[in-house]
């Protein structure tokens, strides 16, 4: 009986860690969905870039793990902003629906470009956070602890920024009423570019943090990009708290499902949950109809 409880506890920890990474990626995706009003198919590739760049900086430039993460997430945010400014914005001016294909194109271009440069061999990121901690019968390694702390801090930080700073309020104002935003002097085009960059930034952090727990390779964004959709369907399109709760819920049910049913069922459980939500609560668990960010 004791063993069973410990196993559940262990899987809960793993689930929360995985869930916080989903949450960061989905928080960024919901920023993009909620503020620009477009769905991005490239979110998984920005996650991948975070991981692959972190690996590359460590491997080829000899930088430390933390420095490499900081450098890669800033570069990824910049790439995201450029993609919005020079690809998504011109498309959106012609037809909002084409932007969906535009982000799909970004996803394929990034994946293939990186494969061309680095090859598709899975690589390992070696983290300096290797200590193991024992909490009663449970074991947690330092990297997982770092993910939990960083994930919570980032969500709180972005939430604070959006609620309390002039920039954050102007971002929310733009999502709630574009005409009025223009009329009060908010530079809407710039807000969109910065927001898309922030969304990519969050995905990249998740990728760089998860790197040491799995492996990094150019096509790693495909599956996690789909998980991003599952999370925002669970939590509610455009809902930021929804992205966080939805991410953690998905991470936990996947981990428990993998441990106690079968690891082959892991994806089925996640997508199954998405279909149930779409059927019975299409606005998501935490979404409100017609609400802005």
């Amino acid at each position, binding site marked *: 009986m004791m063993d069973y409880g410990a196993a559940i506890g262990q899987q809960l920890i793993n689930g929360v860690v995985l869930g916080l990474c989903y949450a960061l990626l989905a928080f960024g995706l919901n920023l993009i969905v909620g503020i620009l009003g477009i769905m991005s198919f490239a979110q998984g590739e920005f996650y991948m870039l975070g991981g692959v760049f972190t690996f590359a900086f460590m491997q080829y430039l000899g930088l430390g793990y933390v420095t490499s993460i900081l450098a890669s997430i800033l570069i990824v945010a910049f790439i995201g902003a450029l993609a919005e400014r020079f690809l998504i914005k011109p498309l959106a001016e012609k037809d909002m629906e084409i932007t969906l294909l535009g982000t799909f194109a970004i996803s394929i271009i990034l994946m293939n470009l990186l494969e061309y440069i680095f090859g598709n061999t899975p690589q390992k990121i070696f983290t300096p956070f290797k200590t193991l901690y024992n909490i009663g019968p449970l074991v947690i390694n330092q990297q997982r602890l770092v993910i939990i702390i960083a994930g919570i801090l980032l969500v709180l930080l972005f939430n604070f920024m959006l609620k309390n700073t002039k920039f954050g309020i102007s971002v929310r104002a733009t999502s709630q009423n574009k*005409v009025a935003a223009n009329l009060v002097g908010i*530079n809407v085009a710039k807000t969109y570019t910065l927001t898309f960059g922030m969304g990519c930034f969050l995905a990249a952090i998740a990728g760089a943090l998860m790197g040491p727990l799995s492996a990094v390779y150019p096509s790693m964004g495909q599956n996690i990009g789909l998980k991003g959709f599952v999370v925002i369907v669970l939590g509610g399109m455009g809902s930021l708290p929804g992205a966080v709760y939805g991410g953690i819920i998905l991470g936990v049910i996947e981990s428990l499902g993998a441990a106690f049913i079968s690891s082959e069922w892991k994806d089925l459980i996640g997508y199954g949950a998405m279909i149930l939500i779409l059927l019975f609560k299409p606005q998501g668990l935490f979404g409100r109809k017609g609400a802005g960010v």
Partner: protein
Amino acid sequence: MLEITQLEVSYGAVQAVKGIDLEVKDGELISLIGNNGAGKTTTLHAISGLLKAKAGSIKFNGQELTVLKPYEILQQGVAQVPEGREVFPELTVFENLEMGAYLTSKDSKLFNDTLEMCYTYFPILPKRKNQLARTLSGGEQQMLVIARALMSQPKLLLLDEPSLGLAPMVVEQVMSIIQEINKKGVAVLLVEQNANLALEISNRGYVMETGKIVLSDDSKNLLDNEEVKTAYLGI
């Protein structure tokens, strides 16, 4: 102050404004009346830079506005109160006003003075300060949007149908505040379907029909004009 010459604007495939001339001088309160679909809102959107002019010019104190972005036009001192109470629904009343001063809030003394002025015009707003804008009544939302525009300290205020859908008593209140704002030296261009109301408080008026200005005169003359009376005043 504002000089529009031969302005043409298309709204999608439709040419909604077909070459109009319109002028607002310093300190004036000008009304632009006409039926639904005459091109009044399109004209205001072109002034604010929300729509691009197809031809013609809009000069504000000598500066051509048709080449500027909406936030640059606001910086020049032209603010718009759009039709239909366009608040930021999920922001508080105070945050809405703060956004109104988006380009000017660096000087906090100026911000506070302007805020005080708005609160004096609309005493209901300080009472609702921390409420979300979507919880306000229609009249309160209209007041909030006017106050939000005033927070940018405009020299020219464009108002699009401020009376639409408001209770008669609230309409009177809003109209008298618009007059008060104008008396403080802010020029006003007032777009109204309610021609009577607009002509009562304005110095001069323009009548717009299917994209063209068909009449312009002192407001009191327009109130006596037989065509205007039958077409717009319902007399």
